[in-house]
């Protein structure tokens, strides 16, 4: 113990080597589990496209779904008006729906809506606060379309599949 500091440090490092390896293993397993559960959670919590029961569609193509949220359509084939409901831009479900279902970064939708809003030419969606309001508004507005997490869906609205 002539050089206690030096000696101790060596001892610590030697002792730490196997422990670090084990820790890495444990962390790998843990993060794997976490990541898996995140994926699974994301999967089960996925936002679904919903519509008022009056909407005469059971499924739409990806591009048709995008066209709805780009506000390119104003009425259904039977002539009834289309109303689009969305959550606020920074709502996690909005981002999730945009990215996973429409496969668009949310800024793309915002850009189209802002162009309509600030030019006085074109429609913009109506913004709701949360899943509950989304369900209520879509259920009570003929021709309405929106999105909501799977668990919140009730019999007042229909789910529309994106092919």
């Amino acid at each position: 113990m002539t050089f206690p500091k030096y000696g101790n440090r060596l001892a610590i490092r030697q002792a730490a080597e196997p422990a670090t390896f084990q820790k890495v293993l444990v962390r790998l397993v843990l993060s794997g589990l976490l990541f898996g559960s995140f994926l699974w959670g994301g999967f089960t919590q996925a936002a679904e496209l919903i519509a008022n029961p009056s909407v005469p569609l059971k499924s739409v193509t990806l591009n048709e779904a995008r066209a709805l949220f780009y506000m390119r359509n104003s009425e259904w084939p039977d002539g009834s008006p289309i109303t689009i409901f969305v959550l606020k831009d920074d709502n996690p479900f909005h981002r999730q729906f945009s990215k996973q279902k429409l496969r668009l970064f949310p800024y793309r939708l915002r850009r189209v809506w802002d162009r309509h809003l600030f030019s006085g030419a074109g429609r913009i969606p109506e913004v709701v606060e949360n899943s509950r309001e989304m369900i209520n508004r879509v259920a009570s507005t003929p021709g309405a379309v929106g999105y909501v997490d799977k668990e919140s869906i009730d019999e007042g609205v229909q789910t529309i599949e994106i092919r």
Partner: protein
Amino acid sequence: MKEYRPLRYVNSMLLKRAIFIVTLLVIPLTEVAASFQGVDKLQVHGFLTQGYFLTSDNAVLGASDHDQGSLDFHETGLNATYQFSNAFSFGVQGLFRKAGVSEDTRIDYAVLDWRVGSWEDGEWGLRLGRVKNPMGLYNETRDVAFTRPSVFLPQGLYYDRSRNLVHSTDGGQLYVNLNTHIGFFELKGNVGKAENDNKELKMAIFGFDTPGELVSKRENYWGQIKFESQSGDLELALSYADVVLDYKPGTGDPFRAGATRYRPLVLSAQYNWRKAILTAEYLRQQNRFNHLGVNFPDSAVVTESYYLQGEYLFSRKIKGILRFGAHYLNKKDRGGKIAAANLGIPDHRGFTEDWVVGLSWLPSSTWQLQIEYHRLNGTSWLPAQANPDLSKLEQHWDMVAMTASFRF
């Protein structure tokens, strides 16, 4: 003939203050309104922007070339949209804008939208009132920071000094929207008159503030065909306009009653690839000056401008931008030598080449901060009103520009 009086002459300090106060009042009111049922057909939105500009030389939007830079740039807008029925809606936007020495409060747009007809894959209709002019990708929303990729829109295409001529038409717009299997087509055609405050443009044409006026007496035409691919990844647009401003001489005017005519053609392309956006636009504008008298021989000049722009989203809150833009007032005189010899102005008044690098930060969905650096060669788009002594303009200059914006 009854003299044409556009809405802006109704303006007063009162209206200006009213817009500002109403904007501040409406922010909390919208929260209240949202809690009522049955107001969903009325939507109210607005924005506020404050700018800061610092230049090495040359005044841009205030005394930006002084030590502390310039804060003389605000934009305040308030708009309301009301949906009467599936076929009728009304939208109006009031705008207060201070840009350097010029202050402007006006009705930005006031449109009755009548969707006349529709079929399975399309619709057509009319927008009546003060309608925004479709020109390139950004003109219709040029005064709203949240729609601009950078603090400055590319000035060769969206230059400030002709803004009153370009931003809107008092008249009407015919529109057609078509959904096809290859994508979405949007056609717009405007007919009507422009606003009658074109002092900056007049100074650009004659080189000084003449006693006369440039007035919009005849119908102007604006048109655009826009294509968006089904996914929205690709956007293409072709815009064209035919605009005539008549020159009404003042007392002791060296110029006679004549006409000026502008025919811009703009090609636009934008491609979105995941987190990157590539944009390019090209302008070719024919300008004609006729019957202005012996001091201004009839002439025809072609203005050319283009830019290439790349944007990248580093995260959902931070976006970077890199752009090169060029502007040549006279395609046949890119170096400005002929204009310099004829008008006695510096040759760099004939062109501008502008490199821009910048960042946008969106800390929340209601706030935006933009900052950018410009390296410029040329002074073609600098306002003469802010730089009365043209001989003091510097050809090579730098600029830092910033805006902070709030929306609701």
